[in-house]
């Protein structure tokens, strides 16, 4: 239905600059998730797209039309808020009908569209209730209903699931993904939860400090993070960063000595580093297996059933986390030997830039 292009969007609140020249091209029917820590500017960016806030600089182009100065409703967008923002004095029916009433739609047409939205969201038997009589999940569905009746070009979601409990959040995640397929619409979704980002997105925008750190598919971000920030943000539990020194550079890649002792040969691009440079080796907890490279002193073991997560320290004092088999016999307070396949390790230079891995799994679509 619509493409969305952001061109050099900047935003300042007085002296504080919260967004720095954001350039993004979002494709038709794409589900894009903005993810980042609190205060990274993701909600501000969404409000700028919605037209609720003005960009200090830059353009917003929807379907080839510059809408930077257009009112929210003229942009053909609709938005779902974190707090649902339902009108408390109106019934569910009237809440969903509100955008249509404002647009002065004919009665029959309005009724038909409200009922269809209610059907999609399983709210048909709740239409006469007030928002106050609904549960959190139902309220969120009403808010989504209100956003779909107008048949907008682009849906905007501002952390819509943060107020729900964990179980409901999982259900709603699936429902939203399904809704995206059914409606075949362009959606932009803001969250601070990387699980939501990984599970729902076609492509993820990782924001940090008002800058785009990386824009790509979930698996691309997972396997080829641009920098240390993205690597640490994507993936659960977080990636371990182990300090190391470059010992040699060869055709096979980088030979590094970990501060914890062992030497590893890592198959990565070696451009920009020299022998003797300090680097950090990024190791995902789930890439770790029993072996003989790393000595880890286990402090805490969290058994989740299928897997067990071990938190410990390396010989050099760096915190290290490993994802082990659920039935592992490892005991807290002991030291175990682990290893990681060199191809699975990530390397970051002193500035946090990644040295691209040569051998990584082929990306799934």
């Amino acid at each position: 239905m619509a493409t969305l292009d952001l061109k050099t969007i900047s935003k300042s609140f007085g002296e504080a600059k919260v967004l720095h020249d954001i350039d993004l091209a979002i494709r038709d029917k794409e589900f894009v998730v903005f993810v980042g820590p609190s205060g990274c500017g993701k909600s501000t960016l969404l409000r700028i797209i919605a037209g609720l806030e003005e960009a200090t600089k830059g353009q917003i182009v929807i379907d080839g039309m510059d809408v930077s100065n257009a009112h929210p409703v003229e942009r053909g967008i609709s938005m779902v808020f974190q707090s649902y923002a339902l009108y408390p004095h109106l019934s569910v029916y009237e809440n969903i009908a509100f955008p249509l009433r404002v647009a002065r739609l004919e009665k029959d047409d309005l009724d038909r569209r409200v009922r269809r939205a209610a059907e999609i969201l399983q709210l048909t038997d709740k239409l006469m209730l007030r928002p106050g009589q609904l549960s959190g999940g139902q309220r969120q569905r009403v808010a989504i209903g209100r956003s779909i009746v107008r048949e907008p070009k682009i849906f905007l979601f501002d952390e819509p699931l943060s107020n729900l409990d964990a179980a409901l959040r999982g259900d709603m995640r699936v429902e939203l993904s399904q809704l995206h397929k059914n409606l075949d619409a362009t959606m932009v979704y803001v969250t601070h939860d990387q699980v939501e980002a990984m599970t729902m997105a076609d492509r993820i925008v990782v924001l940090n400090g008002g800058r785009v750190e990386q824009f790509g598919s979930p698996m691309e971000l997972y396997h080829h993070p641009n920098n240390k920030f993205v690597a640490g943000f994507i993936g659960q539990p977080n990636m371990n960063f182990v300090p190391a020194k470059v010992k040699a550079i060869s055709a096979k890649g980088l030979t590094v000595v970990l501060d914890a002792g062992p030497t590893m040969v890592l198959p990565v691009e070696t451009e920009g580093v020299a022998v003797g440079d300090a680097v950090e080796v990024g190791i995902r907890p789930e890439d770790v297996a029993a072996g003989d490279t790393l000595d880890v002193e286990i402090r805490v073991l969290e058994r989740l059933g299928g897997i067990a997560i071990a938190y410990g320290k390396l010989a050099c004092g760096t915190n290290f986390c490993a994802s082990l088999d659920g039935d592992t016999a490892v005991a807290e307070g002991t030291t175990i030997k682990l290893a990681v396949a060199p191809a699975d390790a990530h390397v970051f230079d002193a500035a946090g830039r990644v040295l691209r891995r040569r051998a990584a799994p082929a990306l799934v679509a």
Partner: protein
Amino acid sequence: MANASTNIAAAGPRGPKPRRAISGRNIMIYGTLGLVALYYALPLYVMIVTSLKGMPEVRLGHIFAPPVEITFQPWVKAWAQACTGLNCDGLSRGFWNSVRILIPSVVISIAVASVNGYALVNWKFKGSETFFTILIFGSFIPYQVMLYPIVILLREMGIYGTLGGLVMVHTIFGMPILTLLFRNYFTSVPEELFKAARVDGAGFWGIYFRIMLPMSMPIFVVAIILQVTGIWNDFLFGVVFTKPDLYPMTVQLNNIVNSVQGVKEYNVNMAATMITGLVPLTVYFISGKLFVRGIAAGAVKG
């Protein structure tokens, strides 16, 4: 319950600890309350009793004695026959004048102030904070300072001495406090509701009439109470900005009670005073229930 029973549910005493109806503490509290109530009710009692007596009985001077012969003549006279100046049609003239002043003043002042408050909260413009500060500052200037300038202003506009002029004065003087009232109330309405309405396509008036107005009934009731009692009880503006034919009820009451010729008809004066006080009294009685009603439940999470 204060002393909800613990896990031994069946056995043992239950419910709050019984209290004796007459204890030293209760006697103190109810005694004091009774005395104070009596003190405040006594003048009202004297007024009612006096207004139901004929003049011969009043002249006897037993102000606390109940009427021997109940008569409603003083009430009738106060309403329809009492003289002020040349007019001898009683308080009814003043009553209708007051109504004609009250209704447009209340409606216009609340309409304008609520839109003011709404704009100040949700449609912030450059200098809106300054504008608000100036408006609030206006409420600290004593009325007396502005009386004469306003007389001149109204004269130049050609509406001095008319009801329209007085309505305008009431509207303007109600503005600071009412705007403050509405602004503070609208601040408590979640901002996301306003944003959602904007995304849904509603404009300035659409949001005001469809969202803000229906959600803010409690504060409208408060504003109506404030304005009705304030304007009804106003004396100063009434006497300064109108002429005898158009005097509001309060001014006319004063003229009836303070007229110096002839016999002082205490019974008529009492009746007239009670009639004048009926409107604010009614407002308080009716509005009590409407006063506290939180309608914002369920708007946002929780």
